């Protein structure tokens, strides 16, 4: 399980995260990425984190309760 956060001040709205993990990320009305959920066990979030050109996504692995 991953805890996900986005630094919206860094996000440039490239939309790469949304295309990799649309269950977790979406571009808001302002074009900046927002989270659909703050926790996910989807491995795609690690690729989304690595693929963010702005380095705006942080993830931390947490033990599932």
């Amino acid at each position, binding site marked *: 399980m991953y805890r996900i956060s986005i630094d919206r001040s860094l996000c*440039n709205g490239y939309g*790469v995260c949304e295309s990799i993990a*649309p269950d977790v990320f*979406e*571009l808001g009305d*302002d074009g*900046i990425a927002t989270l659909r959920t703050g926790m996910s066990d989807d491995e795609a979030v690690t690729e989304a984190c690595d693929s963010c*050109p702005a380095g705006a996504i942080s993830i931390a692995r947490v033990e599932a309760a």
Partner: protein
Amino acid sequence: MKTDPTFWLLARASGLTAYGLLTASVLAGLVLKARPFGRALKPAATADVHRFLTLLALGMLVLHGGSLMLDRTLRMPLAGLFVPGASSYRPVAVAVGVVAAELMALIYVSFVLRRQIGARNWRRLHWATYLVFILATVHGVASGTDSSQPWARDLYLGAVGAVAFATAWRALGRPTRPAPERSL
């Protein structure tokens, strides 16, 4: 008296170099979105390369326009560099180049102003990059005096082929999951 060809040569070389840099920048942008190399390329570095190539291309366009104005072969007026149709030399082909250059500069500035205009509007405007590339290709082929040379033809065919391939790769190569419905 023989005319000094320095600015004429510089104008041709800078125009072709600007086209090459624009092509490389478009390819870098497509690599950024399509991620054909997976995690082998750092996206932040690719984004930096994409922006830097665009800036270099714009700088080369300044050199291209400046050289044409200083050259005595075409005698390009200042207005011809900024106003579509104001050039007496191949007016339509040059006008296409002027529009391409101004649109390219607008797209670059839109990145700097993305906070003010909104990231969504910035992304929409970025689609116009394809129009810039098409216009730049038409301008180069139609107004360039080297266009009939085999190496120039290869350059244009290679650039168009590479961008078409990368665009197809982005569109077809890597399926992405559909976004779930927004909850109301």
